[in-house]
């Protein structure tokens, strides 16, 4: 499956799509990149006069690249126009090490812990352009395809 196709199957759009490109993907894991646009809506409020990317947005970025893009790849044979993707975040535990500023480009790397009974659990980390660790943790979600009757 082409990586562009995976991104087109994501159930997100602006201003809540946090995947620019998938760099590598296999049965074991995925890596991808995203650049936070300096005019993104959340910088107006987080923080007042001091824009820093919120941790929840970093977590969301890790989940979109590391679990959802990856899940689409793992389910590739089952997804079609009749079988739509259904996803739900079920848990995450993330530690943060460095701030991410507007215009920063980050790389997300995710490794599969397991994908069983529709639950995908991954170890995910995010690095900045200097290859410094920004955050890391474990994210799980349920991911299934469902008939659209």
């Amino acid at each position, binding site marked *: 499956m082409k990586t562009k196709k995976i991104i087109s199957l994501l159930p997100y759009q602006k201003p809540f799509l946090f995947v620019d490109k998938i760099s590598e993907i296999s049965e074991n894991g995925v890596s991808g990149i995203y650049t936070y646009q300096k005019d993104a809506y959340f910088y107006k409020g987080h923080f007042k006069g001091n824009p820093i990317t919120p941790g929840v947005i970093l977590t969301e970025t890790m989940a979109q690249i590391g679990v959802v893009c990856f899940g689409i790849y793992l389910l590739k044979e089952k997804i079609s126009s009749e079988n739509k993707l259904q996803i739900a975040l079920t*848990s995450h535990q993330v530690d943060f090490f460095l701030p991410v500023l507007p215009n920063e480009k980050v790389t997300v790397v995710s490794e599969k812990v397991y994908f069983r009974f*529709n639950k995908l659990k991954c170890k995910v980390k995010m690095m900045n352009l200097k290859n410094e660790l920004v955050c890391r943790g474990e994210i799980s979600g349920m991911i299934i395809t469902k008939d659209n009757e």
Partner: protein
Amino acid sequence: MTKEQLLEKLTAIVKPYVQNEEGFKNLNEETDFINDLEINSANLVDIILDVEDEFDIEIDNDSMENMLTVKATIQIIQNKMNA
């Protein structure tokens, strides 16, 4: 392994995922993981994976779908262990 020993092990596996403590206090064969213990489907998967490790068995998709109560789970574990 007796049924009591099995139930004891299963209770220990389930404990960390329980949301309804009252339901857990009253745990018995009729206990339903989702309705009585308020365990979500993602944690139900963790319970099944822990059951596999604890009893050294493999649970397939069909069995998993039936493992919604303590009774059904004990039955499936016993069947797999005796297989």
